[in-house]
């Protein structure tokens, strides 16, 4: 690398810190607001330093909820979001890895047709077929259920393609050695392919968990009961734009709680996250 002289280096550091400040500022404000008194905020008198209501606000947010129309404790919303995110991530990995296995390691009639049927789903997010999907979930009596929340979001090809790509790079000789060692298809999958896919599964899990946790439009449509709300839907129902009744400290505490799990995953599992992001976008 071309060595940079001192001055330029300082400029680079400065620009990066400005970037970090811009990226972090809204979140800082949210954290600050979640520790202050609502009356102060509603008057536009909010301080830029943390207040003293931290425990009070978070206790109320997690275990009680707002005093307004939706009285659902955010703790329960987080549980719903967690179940949905896990169901999406695990469900998608599970069904994708076995179908990718079939497509790569077997020859059977309609193999390519099936591959294309799955592949095409890559192109269309759930948003463009939202009402017909809603109708089907309603007909299957899956409104307000975890299955209804997760299944339509599992119907996508990204993970299948990823595993297919990965399986293609596994040397043929491993399968041949397994055959000579007396392992059949299921045993080869379980003893060799699955352990080799561990890193890919983990990377994919990180990404899918974040995507699942952050789902919004779909849960908004199919959850009608307050106790089935996810946290993303819950937070929207807390703000009433025209109304002065919005309890901002609780809204901000909910925002912080909504960010916490996925941000933690990104920071704690940065390597897997980066890998998963790059691989799923390929």
């Amino acid at each position, binding site marked *: 690398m071309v060595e940079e002289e001192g001055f330029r280096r300082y400029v680079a*550091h400065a620009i*990066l810190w400005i970037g970090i400040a811009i990226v972090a*500022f809204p979140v800082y404000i949210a954290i600050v607001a979640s520790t202050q008194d609502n009356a102060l*905020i509603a008057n536009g008198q909010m301080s830029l330093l943390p207040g003293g209501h931290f425990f009070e606000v978070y206790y109320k947010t997690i275990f009680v909820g707002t005093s307004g129309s939706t009285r659902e404790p955010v703790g329960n919303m987080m549980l719903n979001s967690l179940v949905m995110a896990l169901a999406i991530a695990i469900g998608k990995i599970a069904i994708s890895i076995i179908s990718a296995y079939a497509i790569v390691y077997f020859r059977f009639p309609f193999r390519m047709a099936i591959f294309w049927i799955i592949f095409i789903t890559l192109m269309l997010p759930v948003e*463009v077929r939202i009402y017909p999907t809603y109708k089907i979930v309603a007909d299957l009596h899956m409104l307000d259920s975890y299955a209804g929340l997760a299944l339509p979001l599992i119907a996508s090809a990204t993970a299948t393609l990823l595993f297919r790509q990965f399986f293609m790079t596994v040397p043929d000789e491993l399968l041949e050695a397994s055959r000579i060692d007396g392992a059949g298809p*299921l045993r080869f999958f379980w003893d060799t392919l699955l352990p080799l896919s561990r890193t890919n599964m983990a990377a994919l899990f990180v990404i899918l968990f974040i995507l699942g946790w952050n789902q919004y439009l779909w849960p908004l449509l199919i959850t009608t009961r307050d106790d089935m709300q996810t946290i*993303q839907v819950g937070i929207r129902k807390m703000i009433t734009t025209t109304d002065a009744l919005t309890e901002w400290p609780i809204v901000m505490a909910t925002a912080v709680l909504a960010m916490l799990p996925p941000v933690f995953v*990104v920071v704690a599992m940065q390597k897997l996250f980066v890998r998963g992001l790059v691989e799923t976008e390929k």
Partner: protein
Amino acid sequence: MQKQAIFQSKLLPYALVAPQLAIVLIFFYWPALQAVIQSFLLQDAFGLSSTFVWFENYIELFKDPAYFEAVVRTFVFSFAIAVSSLSFALLLAVMADKPLRGSMLYRTLLIWPYAVAPPVVGVLWIFMLHPSLGVLSRYLRGLGVDWNPLLDGNQAAGLIILAAAWKQISYNFLFFLAGLQAIPRSVFEAAAIDGARPMRRFWTVTFPLLSPTIFFLLVVNIVYAFFDTFGIIDTMTRGGPGTSTVTLVYKVYSDGLLGGNLGSSAAQSVILMVMVIVLTGIQFRFVERKVTY
């Protein structure tokens, strides 16, 4: 590309693809087909009967100025979000690509907003720029700006673009950094020896070598702006004031939910599908060369 080493089995492969195939058929193809069929039907006011009306729903749509406005608005939003987010992210990535102390720390501190959900992004920004209680609104008013995004459509649009671009910075930053790190260091060294000053090096060497990444990110950002802004818009402005922040996806949602006009909503869905397929096609054609089918 095919594996040479395979297993022989008649039923097992079908059993293995069955779960995914079932889910895809029930929750993807069936609704997509329904959307297409629905878009050719006109329902009566009570939803009791429907008649086949060919392209009438589409024609109505194209004649509707509100729809046309939404199309233009969506594209304006998309480009504004993509360009602003990409340029800021590129600046940061070029800085972070330098051999600086603590560059890993910078990366960590810049990538986490990827994990913030769109509705939360909306909440964060409307809170900061809320006309009556926002922290930043005070300063704007201090500067003499008549700031009220809840009443002024242009301000509302600007606010949404700002929030959406903010969320996308980390994603773009990550891919730019990866793209920069993939450029061999010796190329920069050769350019330096050839007498190119840093700024010139950037425009004549870095930027052209990064162009595949830029193009890829442009497409991804546009698709993002089409769909993922829904959560931001819904928490910030709910399409308002008036219809000044209604994008195509938001319109599908609000027309279907509030208007109950399923035929039109379905026709809009189909048009969206076509747009996404075109965008994805472009992406595969020009960017996606790594995958061979």
